[in-house]
């Protein structure tokens, strides 16, 4: 007996423990929903945040050099393992930046005795030129070889001579060169030089390949530069060999050198900022932008802009450093650059982002030598004898608040604009990632969809909830609601391949339909009132829709068959041409009208269902009271029911908007997906969601593009979150109100 009881107690204890475990499991399961939502939010944010992370530099390695020299050039290899410098004695030296032999001299060679001028090609090729007293130059490239002995990467320094080791004669008269500029690629190159007797020389280098030996020979051709100004301070060649920039004090001359037989001055203009003088000019990667540094620390960007069918060199924007800029160093592959000024501040800028990303004092010295590493993840600074390698964390300089949401004047564009164009074939392409046009597209698509859906869905909901006979309601409501289950890919497909050509061909009919449908309903209503009472009494109440279906079908058929004649009569037989030519409205086959109809179709059931519930659950006591006081059904509806249910209807519209904003497939399939900004109903758009669907599979993980696409998803998430939460809160409050009534 006793043991029986204790057994039972033990069994009970087991049950209690089991109960507790179940409770714990289920509660954590419930919390999982919240966790999931937070995880999505958190993860999106985690991917997005790095684009807004501040740029930082951090001294990583440091060593002292034996001598304090004036340098012509400074550079690094891709892995930041080896640095090189060309000093004013014409000596090229390589130093190690590796931990194990930091500061060791790896290779050194005198490239030219007593050089008088120096020039450098664009950073991505990094070839150098030194000239001597007698008009001759040497051209060399500090280069690196990578090998893997013992499975470890080893980088060794070497010197390359792209044009051969022998000196190249630039000035046949043998005068010393004072200013030089130079550019070289595999196909050809050029050297521009000014001699001390102020002659401008231009040497065109052409590569020819020997068919048999596959050796490359370089041929040179000398041309004189016409009308060269006195005291040339600086010359720059664009890497595409189309332009030669010559600066003389504050004035800039742009030579058109694309045709070497006809070198001419394209434009001449002052480029200094207000009340100051130019100190340096430098080309940005891609060679379309010229950065001009002024003595007061203002750096201005200039490029050619097509205006009135003429390319003119135009001031675009400026940046401010703290003091007189000593160096401008462009990045190798991006549109960024850094400056050091006379107060020892290092600043990093990006042109598209239009910002100063970093401003940090790194020295008290006013004469620093700086270089970017090729991957822009480090900066090498020589401050007298002290060599410092700074680690640079600057992954996404081009993405800033202003680049995403404000107008940006992109290279080659006639004016500042909102543009989305994320990728291109070329490397030095300036990515245009403004979220404005695609956000606009989203709003445009949602707007036209709501324009179509809201009237139909809400009127339909009102009728179904308030006037319809219950017998029909049980069939009608699920039928409309089942539309919600239709895959949007099917709606998109029908919109793109069936509706779009139909509307294009029958545009007058469609416009006519807009008038014909309501008018035919009104006409039927009028006819109905004129019908004899006896007959009407036999017909049950609340079946208007059934009477109207054939009427609407007829109206639709008549409008469609009138489309052709109407087109002949009003629009000269081709509405599309008429719209474009006479009214100046562009017409795309897949346009906002199509999206509006298809997406409207998709959101009708959402709005209809919620609004119908709200209206239907208005307490009967309210309507009864109103009717008892003598109001007509319509007055009761307008003054009592709709007012009471209006929060519910509002929340229905919010939910519908949320759905329209996020819808992907319909927009993807029913528009041309061109990111244009225009309210024209006959043109397409690109929405945030379609943009993600199109570009996400091709974007490189971790790149700026990838993160901006995540940002687009984040924007969508936040947007729908707000809409849904507001709608849900409104609905909850309404429910409480009803239950209290």
């Amino acid at each position: 007996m006793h043991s029986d009881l204790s057994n039972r107690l033990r069994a009970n204890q087991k049950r209690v423990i089991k109960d507790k475990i179940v409770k714990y499991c289920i509660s954590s399961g419930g919390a999982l929903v919240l966790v999931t939502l937070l995880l999505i939010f958190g993860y999106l944010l985690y991917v997005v945040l790095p684009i807004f992370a501040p740029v930082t530099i951090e001294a990583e390695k440091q060593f002292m050099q034996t001598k304090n020299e004036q340098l012509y050039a400074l550079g690094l290899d891709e892995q930041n393992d080896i640095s090189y410098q060309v000093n004013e004695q014409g000596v090229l030296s390589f130093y190690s930046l590796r931990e194990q032999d930091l500061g060791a001299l790896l290779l050194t060679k005198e490239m030219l005795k007593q050089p008088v001028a120096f020039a450098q090609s664009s950073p991505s090729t990094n070839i150098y030129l030194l000239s001597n007293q007698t008009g001759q130059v040497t051209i060399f490239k500090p280069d690196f070889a990578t090998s893997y002995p013992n499975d470890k990467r080893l980088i060794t320094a070497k010197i390359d001579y792209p044009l051969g080791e022998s000196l190249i004669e630039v000035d046949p008269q043998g005068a010393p060169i004072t200013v030089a500029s130079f550019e070289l690629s595999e196909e050809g190159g050029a050297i521009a030089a000014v001699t001390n007797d102020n002659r401008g020389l231009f040497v065109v280098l052409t590569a020819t390949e020997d068919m048999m030996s596959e050796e490359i020979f370089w041929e040179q051709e000398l041309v004189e530069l016409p009308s060269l100004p006195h005291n040339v301070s600086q010359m720059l060649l664009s890497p595409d060999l189309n332009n030669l920039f010559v600066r003389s004090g504050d004035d800039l001359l742009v030579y058109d050198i694309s045709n070497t037989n006809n070198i001419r001055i394209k434009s001449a203009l002052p480029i200094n900022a207000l009340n100051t003088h130019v100190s340096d000019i430098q080309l940005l990667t891609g060679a379309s932008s010229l950065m001009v540094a002024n003595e007061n620390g203002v750096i201005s960007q200039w490029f050619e802009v097509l205006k009135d069918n003429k390319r003119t060199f135009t001031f675009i924007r400026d940046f401010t450093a703290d003091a007189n800029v000593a160096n401008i160093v462009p990045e190798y592959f991006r549109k960024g650059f850094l400056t050091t000024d006379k107060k020892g501040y290092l600043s990093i800028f990006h042109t598209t982002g239009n910002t100063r990303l970093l401003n940090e004092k790194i020295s008290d010295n006013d004469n620093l030598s700086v270089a970017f590493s090729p991957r822009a993840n480090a900066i090498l600074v020589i401050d007298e004898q002290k060599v410092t390698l700074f680690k640079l964390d600057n992954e996404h300089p081009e993405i800033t608040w202003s680049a995403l949401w404000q107008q940006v004047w992109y290279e080659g564009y006639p004016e500042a604009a909102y543009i989305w164009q994320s990728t291109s074939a070329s490397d030095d392409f300036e990515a245009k990632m403004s979220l404005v046009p695609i956000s606009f597209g989203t709003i445009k698509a949602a707007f036209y969809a709501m324009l179509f859906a809201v009237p139909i869905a809400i009127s339909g909901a009102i009728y179904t909830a308030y006037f319809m006979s219950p017998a029909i309601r049980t069939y009608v409501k699920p039928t409309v609601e089942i539309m919600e289950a239709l895959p949007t890919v099917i709606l998109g497909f029908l919109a793109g391949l069936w509706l779009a050509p139909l509307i294009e061909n029958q545009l007058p009919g469609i416009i006519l339909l807009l008038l014909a449908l309501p008018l035919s309903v009104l006409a039927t209503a009028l006819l109905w009132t004129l019908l004899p009472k006896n007959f009407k009494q036999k017909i049950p109440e609340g079946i208007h829709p059934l009477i109207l279906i054939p009427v609407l079908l007829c109206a639709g058929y008549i409008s469609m068959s009138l489309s052709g004649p109407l087109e002949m009569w009003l629009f000269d037989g081709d509405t599309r041409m008429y719209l474009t030519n006479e009214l100046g409205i562009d017409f795309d086959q897949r346009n906002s009208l199509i999206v509006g109809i298809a997406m409207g179709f998709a959101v009708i059931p959402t709005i209809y269902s919620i609004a119908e519930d709200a209206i239907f659950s208005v307490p009967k006591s309210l309507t009864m009271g109103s009717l008892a006081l003598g109001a007509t059904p319509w007055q009761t509806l307008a003054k009592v029911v709709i007012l009471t249910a209006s929060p519910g209807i509002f929340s229905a519209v919010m939910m519908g908007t949320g759905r329209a904003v996020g819808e992907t497939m319909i927009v993807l399939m029913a528009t041309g997906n061109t990111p244009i900004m225009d309210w024209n109903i006959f043109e397409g758009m690109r929405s945030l969601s379609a943009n993600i669907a199109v570009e996400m599979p091709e974007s490189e993980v971790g790149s700026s593009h990838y993160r901006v696409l995540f940002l687009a998803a984040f924007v969508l998430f936040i947007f729908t979150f707000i809409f849904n939460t507001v709608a849900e809160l409104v609905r909850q409050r309404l429910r409480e109100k009803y239950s209290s009534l």
Partner: protein
Amino acid sequence: MNKWFKSGTPWIWMTGGAVSLSLIMVIGLFLLIGWRGLSFFWPATVYEFDMLDRQGNHMNVIGEIYDSETVLKQQLIEAGITGLEDKGDTLERYLIKVGNREYVDLDFQWILETIIVEKHIPDNIVVLERTKNGNFYGYIKAFQENGVDIKIPASALEAEFSTRLAITKALKDKETDLLKGDIGRINYDLDRIRLKQRKLDLDGQLTEEKIASFKAQSETLQNEYLVLEKQLFEYRTQALRDAVVITDMTGRDVVMPIAKILDFYLPNKMTFLEKVQHWFHQTAKFVSDDPREANTEGGVFPAIFGTVFMVMLMAVIVTPFGVIAAIYLHEYAPKNNITKFIRIAVINLAGVPSIVYGVFGLGFFVYIVGGSIDQLLYPEALPSPTFGSPGVLWSALTLAILTLPVVIVSTEEGLSRIPSSLREGSLALGATKSETLWRIIVPMASPAIMTGLILAVARAAGEVAPLMLVGVVKMAPTLPVDGNFPYLHLERKFMHLGFHIYDVGFQSPNVEAARPLVYATSFLLVTVIIGLNLAAIGIRNNLREKYRSLEH
């Protein structure tokens, strides 16, 4: 009149009109998809047109009338077509599917009714379905065996064609079986041996004898393969023996190897019953065949399989979580702010755009979770990813989050319909809460859970946007389930009906030819989804009735 407007009657009619319009749109849409989708399999009459072109030359065109439209004479004259002066204001224009893609410039041609001299329906026109280049229309002329003509009486041509086609088909089936079966297995095994060796190498356990053993294994497989390959080539040469000579619309004789022909039929000779039979046959082929020619021909079997498999996987994942969350919300959750937050989270999970789930799935599941799995479990296959690239598992997980609210809402609705007297009775008899749940509540709510599950499946089956990021491809070489160990390949990419529609309708080079196929696929998808929804509604209504009777 003014009074009439004031009375509100016209507005009531207008609201009624909105309902009518919605109904017309829904039903019209179903009818449109149904008609276009189903008529695709009906054997269309093939016509032979005798036409006079503008230079006065006779032209012969054989083809199906695919579409027709009425055009205004004015438009045609503006487009530079002459000789229409004496015709009426509007003219009929036909889109003819002429097939024979490799011999004509355009396999769809617009023909104006005015240039048609005569239209016949010849009985013995044959339609060939081919492995490449779409349909071929013509007349059977003769047969060849190894390039030599065989004499066959004209009356027996059809029967001969059937027998020869059957023989060739049997050979081709053998070839496919061999390729997909044994040869596929050998390739799979070879790859596994390579990975095993690499794994041992990475672990530093690769010894000489193991290398030798691997080598021996692969050599055996290689030898096996050589034998099979010989067999395969044998089948191929045998299949190429027969050819049929077909006269096309220009009167040219085309010699076509029977191995390139899938099926043939003579639509103009068919009786109605035969046409019905043919329709069923074509429909069956559509759901059971693999796609051909960049998905624009053939069937959609892999897409059906992929959709069903992914959705089933998703159902397995989503059901427990959804049900537990619903039970928590309805049975356990206290009335406080956290519960309110969870409810808002449920609504938001339902409202977040599906593409956002896709982005999340790609970043989180594929790159982070999948990438980590690869690092830990499949280092030997790196750098080529195993789970670190989009696949069916990630798709199922992503869609499971997406459909979680559907299951929660539906289950909770079911729970709320169970009268509380039942719970109280159970508790009063001494059962713990968990026992009440397990023995009373969950069994009673199971139809509601079922409803939620069905709705979730229906939602998932139609969702495409997130899948484009997390695992769907236009053409998957292998199904996620096959005969090679471990039989389930959750890392593989898959095909999906919804994506198939998008891909074929919008990305294929010959949209005109592919369009009917897209309608058929759409019809299939819509039928499945609407069917599932109707089933869910049915179960739900049934449940409501049941509990209503319980309450009294």
